[in-house]
């Protein structure tokens, strides 16, 4: 460029700098490219649904996977599943991220020095075959896996037999061993029976968090909610900490930690005496325990126990739940036996506790097998260890020295699809396909066979373990001993119907019939005394399984890290929960870091004082505190470049590391409640990452209650505070006159358990980003639904309430008036629509929203940086750019879809056609969506319920969501009044 003088140059520089600066603000434009060759079964824009099975925990619920253009984007329950009825829990909703996991192994890996490096399948298999050949029939090859699927499990068994290895060990951290042993002693059956919540009118839970992790929480919650409709049913929680499940029950009995067994025994005795039931040989033992005799040891008044015994005796179908994992101590089997004796005394066995169909989970290996394996490894009796999807380095307390034993094994092969603490020791990684990529078959309860089918092609260079094993067997010359055919053929051959037909339904068979059990009553060696709590310190350490992370396996899923804990509303970390009085005594405030010291070690974490816990207990959830393991080295650079989320699982502390490693001598299972802990202030402070500002309502009437008698029509409903009583309005008038629809919702707060499934379903459906710990710390979480939890200490005990807060789609919406650009406006169908492309981000709408349900994209939280996480995006929903406000739309994409269907059929949308993601997954069926202009719709009828109220109605926002009041737990405890009572003469007690 010879003519370019100084001035020209400056002009060009200025112009291009200006242009660059202007362009730099805008998000890059992405083009949609149509298929060149359209696959036959895919119609762009039309989802394909596949029936499959959820594998996030051993319970295996039937699911349907929604795929778009060949990518699974959403998981919903399969309504044909007789166990769960089409519901999925919080973990199941986020299960897709195990497949769309940026840190998964992308292919086989081999160890070079202290690093894992990529290898080819041929190379990896050849080297493994070379190692195995000299070990054939030596018994020095061991297998460690989880509760497995049928085909894959059979392949493992066959392979281990073929090469003459040890019997494979199926290990689950939460294995209900005390329950199995107790059943063996009392009924002569080593099994996990069915607990029928739906048929039960009284549930007494001994620390069994049946709506969180205890057996199948989805089925449990569904049954429990069903049984409680219209004020029926009653729940009692016995345990030191009021868990989410406990808060969903009506009476909280908090005996001294460890002494809960005595309550069970006294109840069994009292109930047996009242009902005259036969307990056989056990009678002699338990007759020692009366309400009076255990009162002193448990700290629970005799009257309370007697009252409960009376209630159980009178109940039509009572159900007592054997101890939840958190309460299993060294007396675990005796405790479970005591509860089962209570079930015998109350007549629950065969009615609400049924043997058959039994849970497959009752067949996994025992903790003592795990110890034996560790012993064998330490003794050099294991030359090759295969590990698949089991992480005992994390989940077995350090006191057992599993990791040291592992280091004695010369060669470890992992089939896990992502790295974890155990796989980090592997010399060879042969990654399995994830459940969303593979065929298999499961039997969650005996008789019911669920199929699992791939919903997308394997994302990476992974192979199904069953086929890898077959190939291995082949190359060591034992191929003929393996089952023939690929996984799909083997599934098809075992079915009674055609594979296609069975796949369409998701499975076949029905839960097995109930078998009668008789009392065996072998109580020898059972020590019916409180759990031994060793160690120094004044507080008892309660390690409880976590709703979000189960035994720790789900901690790597960021979505689950960012959904607030149902009780503490904390995210992304571990917290030591203590009672406020204890906090005051120890001079601790929320966020003060404490050192929890037991005989086995110490952990440091911030405290979280809250009311719903005994003052002599410190509780920590398990599941957090994973050790950082090197991700695939190819990925580490990507991490460094894009990481503001951090490795999802490296948060908090692992409370299992300070459990002293006691076992229940009868079952051989781990004793969770086994130690005291010394809690010391360190002086350090850490920010508590929580979604909730305060746990007090401050008299604002957001979560309201009514009484049981009012629900039953026996007394007038308690009046709201005067300032909350305002004129009624007709929500049907808040849409255009010529529109047949006004969308609305009702949420039954009495049915809601607070299980967070709706939040996760909503996030998956609506492309809501996870923003990471740093963002959440400053209060920028993005979830559109907020489950509010209130715990206030009143004159008559602790008052725990909840509220579900999402966009109310107000008829007179304060957000709409203040938007200068009409980015949010009222549609003809009464929705507050949000036009993301029009939004300039003044954020006035959020300020003016009294419900505080609008969320702002503070930074570019796009999914781009997390390939392949962005594959889970729902193409029907706009991905919001930075600087844009977003909020609940009542799943407007689902509304549009059904309106379109109705239009094609020449009719109006019928009630029940449209189900938003939150309502779809709610195991309690607490959320009902529908048309408020149709007086016959379910939602319109629920609006007429005397329990219905609108939050903050006094602001004249005309919300389209009615909440149904919770029924006051105290009034539930008092019970319904005898029929025919005189209404005029009511006395308040």
């Amino acid at each position: 460029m010879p003519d370019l003088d100084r001035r020209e140059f400056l002009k060009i520089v200025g112009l291009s700098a200006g242009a660059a600066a202007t362009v730099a603000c805008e998000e890059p434009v992405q083009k949609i490219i149509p298929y060149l060759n359209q696959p036959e079964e895919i119609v762009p824009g039309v989802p394909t649904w596949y029936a499959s099975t959820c594998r996030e925990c051993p319970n295996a619920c039937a699911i349907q996977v929604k795929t778009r253009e060949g990518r699974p984007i959403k998981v919903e329950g399969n309504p044909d599943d007789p166990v769960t009825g089409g519901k999925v829990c919080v973990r199941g909703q986020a299960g897709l991220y195990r497949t769309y996991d940026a840190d998964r192994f992308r292919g086989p890996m081999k160890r070079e020095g202290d690093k894992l490096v990529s290898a080819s399948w041929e190379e990896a298999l050849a080297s493994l075959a070379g190692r195995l050949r000299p070990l054939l029939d030596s018994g020095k090859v061991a297998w460690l896996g989880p509760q497995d699927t049928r085909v894959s499990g059979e392949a493992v068994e066959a392979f281990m037999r073929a090469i003459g290895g040890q019997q494979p060990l199926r290990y689950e951290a939460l294995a209900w061993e005390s329950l199995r042993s107790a059943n063996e002693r009392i009924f002569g059956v080593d099994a996990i029976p069915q607990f029928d919540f739906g048929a039960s009118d009284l549930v007494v839970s001994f620390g069994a968090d049946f709506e969180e992790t205890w057996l199948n929480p989805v089925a449990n919650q569904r049954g429990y909610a069903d049984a409680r409709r219209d004020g029926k049913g009653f729940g009692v929680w016995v345990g030191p900490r009021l868990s989410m499940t406990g808060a969903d029950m009506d009476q909280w009995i908090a005996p001294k930690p460890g002494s809960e067994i005595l309550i069970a025994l006294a109840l069994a005795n009292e109930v047996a005496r009242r009902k005259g039931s036969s307990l056989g040989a056990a009678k002699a033992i338990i007759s020692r325990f009366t309400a009076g005799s255990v009162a002193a040891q448990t700290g629970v008044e005799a009257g309370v126990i007697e009252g409960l015994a009376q209630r159980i005796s009178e109940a039509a179908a009572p159900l007592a739940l054997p101890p939840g994992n958190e309460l299993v101590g060294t007396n675990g089997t005796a405790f479970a036996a005591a509860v089962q004796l209570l079930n015998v005394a109350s007549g629950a066995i065969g009615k609400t506790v049924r043997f058959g169909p039994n849970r497959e989970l009752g067949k996994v290996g025992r903790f003592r097998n795990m110890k034996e394996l560790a012993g064998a490894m330490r003794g050099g009796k294991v030359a090759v260890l295969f590990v698949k999807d089991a992480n005992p380095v994390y989940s077995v307390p350090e006191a057992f020295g599993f990791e040291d034993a592992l280091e004695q094994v010369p060669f470890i092969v992992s089939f896990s699809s992502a790295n974890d603490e155990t796989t980090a020791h592997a010399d060879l990684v042969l990654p399995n396909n994830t459940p969303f990529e593979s065929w298999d078959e499961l039997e969650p309860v005996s008789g019911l066979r669920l199929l699992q089918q791939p919903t997308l092609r394997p994302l990476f260079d992974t192979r199904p373990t069953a086929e890898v094993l077959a190939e291995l067997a082949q190359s060591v010359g034992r191929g003929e001993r393996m089952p023939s055919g690929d996984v799909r053929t083997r599934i098809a051959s075992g079915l009674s119907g055609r594979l296609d037909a069975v796949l369409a339904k998701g499975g076949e068979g029905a839960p097995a019939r109930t078998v009668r059990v008789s009392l065996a009553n072998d109580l020898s060696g059972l020590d019916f005394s409180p759990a031994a709590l060793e160690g120094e310190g004044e507080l008892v350490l309660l390690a409880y399984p976590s709703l979000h992370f189960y035994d720790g396996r789900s901690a790597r899923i960021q979505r689950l890290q960012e959904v607030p804990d149902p009780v503490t509303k904390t995210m992304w970390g571990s917290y030591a929960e203590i009672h406020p009085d204890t906090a005051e005594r120890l001079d601790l405030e929320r966020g003060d870091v404490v050192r929890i010291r037991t005989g086995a070690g110490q952990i440091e974490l911030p405290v979280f004082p809250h009311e719903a816990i005994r003052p002599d207990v410190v509780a920590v959830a398990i599941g957090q505190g994973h050790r950082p393991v090197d991700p695939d080295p190819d990925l580490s650079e990507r991490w460094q470049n894009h990481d503001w989320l951090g490795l999802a699982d490296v948060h908090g502390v692992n409370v299992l590391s300070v459990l002293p490693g006691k076992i229940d001598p009868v079952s051989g299972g781990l004793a969770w409640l086994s130690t005291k802990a010394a809690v010391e202030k360190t002086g350090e402070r850490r920010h508590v990452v929580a979604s909730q500002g305060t746990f007090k309502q401050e008299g604002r009437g957001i979560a309201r209650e009514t009484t049981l008698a009012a629900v039953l029509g026996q007394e007038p409903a308690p009046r709201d505070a005067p300032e909350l009583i305002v004129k009624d309005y007709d929500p049907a008038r808040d849409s255009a006159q010529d529109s047949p629809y006004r969308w609305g919702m009702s949420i039954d707060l009495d049915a809601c358990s607070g299980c967070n499934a709706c939040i996760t379903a909503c996030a998956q459906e609506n492309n809501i980003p996870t923003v990471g710990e740093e963002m959440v710390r400053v209060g920028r979480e993005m979830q559109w639904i907020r489950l509010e939890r209130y715990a206030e200490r009143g004159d008559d005990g602790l008052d725990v309430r909840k509220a579900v807060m999402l966009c109310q789609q107000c008829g007179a919406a304060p957000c709409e008036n203040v938007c200068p650009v009409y980015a949010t406006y009222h549609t003809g169908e009464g929705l507050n629509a949000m036009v993301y492309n029009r939004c300039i981000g003044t954020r006035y709408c959020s300020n003016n929203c009294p419900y505080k349900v609008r969320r702002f994209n503070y930074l570019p939280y796009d999914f781009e940086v997390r390939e392949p996480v962005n594959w889970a995006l729902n193409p029907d929903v706009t991905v919001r750019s930075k600087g844009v406000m977003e909020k609940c739309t009542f799943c407007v994409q689902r509304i549009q879809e059904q309106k379109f269907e109705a239009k094609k059929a020449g009719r109006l949308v019928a009630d029940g056609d449209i189900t938003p993601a939150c309502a779809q997954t709610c195991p309690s069926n607490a959320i009902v969506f529908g048309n408020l202009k149709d007086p016959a719709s379910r939602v319109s009828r629920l609006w007429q319920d005397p329990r219905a109220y609108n939050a903050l109605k006094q602001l004249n926002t005309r919300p389209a969501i009615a909440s149904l009041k919770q029924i006051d737990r105290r009034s539930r405890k008092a019970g319904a009044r005898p029929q025919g009572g005189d209404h005029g003469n009511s006395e308040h007690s």
Partner: protein
Amino acid sequence: MVSVTDSSPETPTQISDEVFRTLEPPTPIYVLAVLFVMLLVGAAIAGLAYQTYAGFGGIGVTGLMHPVMWGVYITCFVFWVGIAHAGTLISAVLYLFRARWRNAINRSAEAMTVFAVITAALFPLIHIGRLWKFYFMLPYPNQRQLWVNFKSPLEWDVFAVQTYMIISILFFFVGLIPDLAAARDRCTDWRKYLYTALALGWRGTSEQWRHHARAVLHLSGLATPLVLSVHSVVSWDFAMSLVPGWHTTIFAPYFVAGAIFSGIAMVITLIVPVRKAFGLEGVIRAEHFDNMGKFLLLTSCIVGYSYGVEYFMAWYSGNVFEQQSFWARAFGDYWWASWTMIICNVVVPLPLWFKRVRLSVVAMWIISIFVNIGMWFERFVIITTGLSHEYDSSAWGYYTPGLVEITILIGSFAWFFMWFLIALRLIPMVAISEVKELYFHDQEAKAGTG
């Protein structure tokens, strides 16, 4: 205590000499000062670029959060709009009231107004999430038939602030014309061309003076309602919402009084060093400080009374949300901001009841700085305490401003001072013609009585 010297200049020529001293070649201190504020402005621009940059930037680089979605930026917006009020008040309202003492300070007050409005107008842009779409707020015809929402107080702001900006620039400029002509006549360097162009051919004929006087009068008439309207509209950003602590009818007069309070304080803050640096003691005299002190005192009382009324109404309403919001304002997480505000705005100005204090330049200057701080905090307190403590107690939160916000806050002051410093050297900072007019009035008065 340095007393204000009350020496009137002798002759009209001396007045001109004294004022035009500001246009003499700059001292090194001046150059350093300009460079320093430019550096701070540069830092703020870098902060804004960081906030806007496509790759990783966003409003998230500030401390804003859920539920406090407005913070330092909106505080600054309201603050600078408030500062902009004194200029028009002094120029237009006092002109109409024939308060002649204004003549000595109106030029700097008007300049301050223009620069403050320009500063204020930047903040809504800095604040919005998608800066590059700011034009969505303007009602322009477009193919998609998208229109703005005239129900939104933010849209009212767009018009109120623009109107105010145009009127105040016009007012400033019309008042400047005779002085620019005078400068043109004295100037010999490059600025002569500038002044020639800007003086619009002013020759000082009686015809021109007549037109000029009419123009000033009419513009005063136009500007006077704006003094009340602009800050009323700004206050409605808050009052029209339903946020407890925002939703009150007192806001319009309360904000206008506050705006005048802060505006006068800023005039004092600026004029004291200018007077000292350029030796304008003869022109800006004791009576001016006395009068401004009275003004400060009056508006401080109004503001203090408004604080009281707010708390009283919250209590008297029986409304649990209002009561708790104000309880939290005084004793909650933001107690420090609330008490800073009350001390600076209500307690610190109390000595102004004494004439001795009003006549002390140093005391006035210190008090004015406290008032500036207090008035900034007033807006901060209203915005953040209201938002952090709204209806749903589960959604309460605590907002801490981020580094970028602080940088831009400091940068906004630097930006304002930068323009003021540049203007000091380019335009006569005292309205020469008006001061001369005053001089001749005095002469006539003396002659008449003597």
